[in-house]
């Protein structure tokens, strides 16, 4: 690949990062990509963590369920600061309901799943089931 194609090193790194993300998405073949909210999935060996950016959500209206390797997040984003007769200068934030189902790489233990909502970030920690953990072979 010709050097000039990339421009400066920062652009090059950004471009590489984007391509990496893109290929990760494609490799996983997630059928639900493109649905609100966007999610990131992380793994620490024992559990998966699903992280979504959901600013201004009513915690009481969040409905999170897991079954097998599926995690469902349902909720609503509404606009509480609004009085009836305000004049908008700019309106970019969307309001409404959402329902997202995420497929996790392995089965998780629904009874041990925990969720926190802080600073507009929802983090759901789903520990693997004992059966899923047993698949891993430790090398002494």
């Amino acid at each position, binding site marked *: 690949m010709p050097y000039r194609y990339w421009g400066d090193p*920062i652009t090059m790194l950004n471009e590489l990062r984007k391509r990496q993300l893109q290929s*990760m*998405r494609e490799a*996983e073949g997630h059928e639900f990509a493109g649905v609100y909210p966007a999610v990131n999935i992380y793994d620490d060996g024992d559990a998966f*963590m699903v992280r979504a950016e959901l600013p*201004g959500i009513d915690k009481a209206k969040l409905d999170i369920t897991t079954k097998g390797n599926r995690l469902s997040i349902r909720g609503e984003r509404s606009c509480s600061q609004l009085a009836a007769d305000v*004049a*908008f200068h700019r309106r970019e*934030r969307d309001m409404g309901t959402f329902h997202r189902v995420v497929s996790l790489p392995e089965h998780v233990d629904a009874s041990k799943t925990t969720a926190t909502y802080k600073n507009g970030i929802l983090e759901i920690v789903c520990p693997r089931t004992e059966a899923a953990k047993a698949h891993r072979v430790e090398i002494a």
Partner: protein
Amino acid sequence: MTDKQELQLREKKELKQEGEATREGPHFRPEVDIFEREDALVMVADVPGSSNEQIELDLQDNSLNLTATVSGVDAKWKPVYLEYEIGHYIRQFRIGQIVDMAKISAQVKDGVLVVTLPKIEKAMPRKIEVKSEQ
């Protein structure tokens, strides 16, 4: 406006850096609502992941600069699948003459920043009483 519509996914808008970056990671342009009440302009910005001590509002002449720092995920979590990038938020607003700069206030809750920009006295609507001559 109905409140029950299904939310659509929007890609975060990444900002192209000009000059040298002073902090690591990408920067995004937060989505904002700006509306006008009788006594004030109100700006609502989505800055998920930022707490009150991580948000800076900086007023210079007629421009209000919003910078929200976002901390990433604990290093023990290895990414397996990513749909969005985590980054800081930056946006600049021009403030008109009707705002009383000294009285601007802000608060953040659940990743939503609300900035209240009170209008100066003379910009407020005023009802003029008509007196009758007796």
